Structures are given as structure tokens and as C-alpha cells.
């Protein structure tokens, strides 16, 4: 059962990555964005259905407000503001922030996470 789940998650991740590749290629080829946005929608549906996270570098390419595929310089503005990378969607104006400095001092909650991970890794 566990192996089957891992296989499903693996394929889901591959499909998400593939869809983002296609969205990128489509956005470069034409000005028409509807197809790129459709691929983002499909990738999100796959991620939600199988509880697979969209990798963080790809997550930055989606607008959190209107879920369009973002192309920096075309329909997104990327700026460094303080400790954050701020990406502004030029379609809906939503701002997304992501810290880029060294990770914060380990919080007690994070330590808890680590211990839980160890717990799962133990046979």
C-alpha cells in the first residue's frame, strides 16, 4: 500500500513539473496566456488531489490571487523589499512575499517537526 502511494506521488510530481515546462514553453511561444493558465490549473488540481506540494521554485510562478502563470517582466514584477522577495501580479495586483535571507533561528515548533521526521524514519 505504501509503495503504491509513493508511486502515485512520484507520478503526480512528474506531471506537475511537466505541466509547468509546457506552460513556460507556451508562454514563450505566444502572447496568448490562456493555455499556460490552463496548465497551471491542471497542475494545481493534481497537487490537491494527491496532496503533493508544488515545488517552491514553481510555486513562485503562480499568482496566489488569480492563479495565472507569472512571467517576470511580462505580467509580474519582482523586487527585493527588505528581507523579502516581493512578486506582484500585474493582472490582479496581488503581492506574494518570500524571505530570501538565512533561515530564522530554529523555533521550538521546527525542532518538533524534526523529531517527528526522525520518528517516521525509524523502522
Amino acid at each position, binding site marked *: 500500500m505504501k509503495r503504491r502511494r509513493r508511486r*502515485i506521488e512520484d*507520478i*503526480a510530481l*512528474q*506531471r506537475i*513539473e*511537466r*505541466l509547468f*515546462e*509546457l506552460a513556460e514553453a507556451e508562454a514563450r511561444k505566444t502572447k496568448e496566456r490562456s*493555455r499556460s493558465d*490552463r*496548465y497551471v490549473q*491542471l497542475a494545481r*488540481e*493534481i497537487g490537491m*488531489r*494527491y496532496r503533493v506540494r508544488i515545488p517552491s521554485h514553481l510555486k513562485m510562478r503562480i499568482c496566489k490571487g488569480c492563479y495565472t502563470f507569472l512571467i517576470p517582466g511580462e505580467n509580474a514584477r519582482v523586487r527585493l523589499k527588505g528581507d523579502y522577495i516581493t512578486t506582484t501580479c500585474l493582472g490582479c495586483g496581488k503581492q506574494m512575499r518570500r524571505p530570501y535571507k538565512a533561515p530564522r533561528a530554529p523555533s521550538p515548533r521546527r525542532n518538533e517537526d524534526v523529531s517527528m521526521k526522525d520518528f517516521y524514519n525509524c523502522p
Partner: protein
Amino acid sequence: MKITPSNILQHELIGLRTEVEDSSNSDVKGLCGIVVDETRNMLVIEDEQRKEKKIPKAGNIFVFELNGGVRVRIKGDTLVSRPEDRIKKGKKR
């Protein structure tokens, strides 16, 4: 990241080259192109004239070309389900 004949039923069909090998509709038989979208019951294929053709999955036989030149023949009836639901389906030929 590989699409193989064994996992194509679960994998992404968008972006693959395909040909309608057999169909109950003689007009779409032999249609060649790249899959650009997928719904529960249809594949949207962009043909050489960059026209989008909406082909029902059911009742048609598709030949998909994987990278590496491998060609896989698939009955459209096995593909009928939403694209994100297809991963869950078991292996069937």
C-alpha cells in the same frame, strides 16, 4: 522524469504527439498533431494548420509518440476520466 508505455495511462498526455489511428468518425481518422488540452471526455489536438480539434476519447484509438520515438497504441475508452483522476487508476491495457 520519463513517460514509458507502462505508465502512460497515468502520465501527462498534454504535449505528446498523437495520431488518431481508428475512429468511428471517418473525418478524424488519421488526424495528426500535438495534444494541447484534456478534459474528461475529450482530447484537444492542435494539427499542422495550428487548428484545435476536439476529439472524444471514447470510441477512438490513439497512437502516442513518446520521446525516443516509441509509439504506443491506446484505446481511448481507457482514458475516459478526468486528467487528475487518471493517476489513481490501476494498470489496464
